[in-house]
């Protein structure tokens, strides 16, 4: 996944600055410095004096533009990083080794943080080993049970990521338990409305189809058997899941049982934020920085 993203990455121009806060754990710092080595970004590291001394010793000789900022305390470090982004002194915020809940509460605060309310969602990105094709599943982290308005934002955010990944005319499957519109099952009604919005070009060039159950979404033949005529089944770029639990189950089954390389990106914040989510491999964490940079 990382090799592929690097090949898509623009070689020219000034690289964005990624500010890591708070830097504590060596493995997180290594992720950032690998991205720097691959010419994806320039590093800004916020941490206490001990950590910075270690980083300086290890990386100063090999990284020319290493920017180190001393700041004690997790909360203060994150606040400083957010301030830097707001003042355009850095471009991308990267979560260091700190409690995810506290980090997100601070960063996503509608007033003081980097995002407007209801503007952001999380996209899991998987790569099929068969044909190197990307598949997105969203929202797999932020919304517990998104309503129609939130799903509309979720679709728009995923499309923002499709653009730099050069996914032409993205095909979006809005999943529900059945493929028929059932007024008693809200996920089917939401999906139908999103499909209608797409028909009216409210999502630009993308083709949004729904409701689709998982068999119809993943197999053209299964869809044909249910007499469903659409270009989306069996050729999906983006799956929109009805709730976070189904998002977890779907993305993790593909990632772990299907052995697909996987990463995740928060989309829709004012400036990209790389969240330190568990169960992501080292190279895929580097890929997450590349993906965030593509969103700029």
């Amino acid at each position: 996944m990382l090799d592929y993203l690097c090949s898509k990455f623009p070689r020219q121009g000034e690289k964005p600055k990624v500010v890591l806060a708070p830097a504590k754990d060596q493995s997180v710092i290594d992720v950032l410095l690998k991205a720097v080595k691959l010419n994806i970004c320039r590093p800004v590291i916020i941490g206490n004096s001990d950590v910075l001394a270690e980083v300086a010793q290890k990386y100063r000789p090999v990284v020319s533009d290493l920017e180190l900022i001393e700041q004690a305390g997790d909360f203060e470090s994150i606040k400083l990083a957010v301030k830097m982004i707001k003042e355009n002194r850095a471009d991308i915020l990267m979560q260091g080794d700190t409690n995810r809940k506290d980090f997100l509460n601070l960063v996503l605060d509608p007033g003081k943080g980097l995002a407007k309310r209801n503007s952001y969602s999380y996209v899991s990105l998987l790569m099929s080993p068969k044909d190197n094709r990307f598949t997105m599943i969203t929202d797999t982290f932020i919304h517990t049970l998104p309503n129609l308005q939130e799903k509309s934002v979720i679709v728009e955010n995923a499309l923002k990521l499709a653009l730099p990944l050069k996914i032409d005319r993205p095909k979006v499957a809005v999943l529900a338990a059945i493929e028929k519109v059932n007024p008693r099952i809200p996920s089917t009604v939401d999906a139908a409305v999103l499909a209608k919005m797409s028909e009216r070009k409210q999502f630009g060039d993308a083709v949004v189809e729904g409701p689709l159950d998982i068999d119809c979404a993943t197999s053209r033949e299964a869809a044909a058997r249910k007499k469903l005529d659409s270009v989306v089944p069996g050729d999906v770029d983006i799956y929109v899941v009805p709730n976070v639990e189904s998002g977890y189950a779907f993305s993790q089954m593909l990632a772990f049982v299907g052995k697909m390389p996987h990463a995740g990106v928060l989309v829709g914040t004012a400036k990209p934020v790389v969240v330190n989510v568990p169960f992501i491999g080292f190279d895929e964490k580097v890929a997450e920085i590349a993906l965030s940079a593509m969103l700029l």
Partner: protein
Amino acid sequence: MINNFAKIYQLAKEKGPGKLVVLAPEDREFMSAVKIARHEGYVEPFFIGNLEKMQIAADELDFNVDQIKKISGSDPQEIADYGIAMLFNKETDLVSKGQIPTSYIYRAVIKEEQKRGVKNNISVASLMEVPGCDHMVAVTDVGVNIAPDYEAKVEIIKDAVLLMNLLGYEFPQVVMLSANRDYGPALQSYLDAQRLREEYGDGSGGFEIRPEHSVAEIFDSGKASLPHIFLVPELDTGNIMAKLNYVIPVKRCATVLSSAGPVAIPSRSDFTESIVRDMALGVVLAARIKEKDMGLN
């Protein structure tokens, strides 16, 4: 212990043919599945449905169905009611869905269960063979309960435990899927999992509760060993978990284990191979219920 579908086919052949009522095998895939299951000696079929449509489907496949008993029916609820009543009256070993919506079958089963006062709720378990996994994995409930509450979830787990018992797993492990993500409010599915741990953590339910709540946690534990039973929090997750066979190399089939025996539940989009698996599993389950004398009240 039955740990793959090859063993299920083998046992279906040994124990079969089981008496099978098929509810409206009115299209090619369903009829073709019946033809194969009969040819393999798994089942002795009995049809309920539109006689003309069933004949056309059979003719297309050069399947001589003259000797197969048939009852004419066109209303899906009547077809389901009749077939399920046959199961509860011990006139058949198992029932399989054909070309009618599943909701009619669920309704018919629940009606019979309530009539007998045995069960108030039913569930559909999807049984998967996963490459690299040394046992079968059941995912439940993937069909009936849209958003089960805690009590319903306990019933659903008990149905799946019985299913796994019949397949030879005496003390199956359960993972209750949720999304424990350090963000936002605690999910009901997580709270229910905690409660289940408090109430059944001692093994008194005949199952072991695993500490994980997601597939990623299972693989991260280093053991990467899937549980015998995944309980899904609601139907949307169930649908996804149960039908991933088009994107990852798993094989699956689905069943409702009623107190009178199994009802095979192929999806309307399933193809012959998968439907034959549903029927073969049903035959094996029916035979094991008889052997253990745990069927019919």
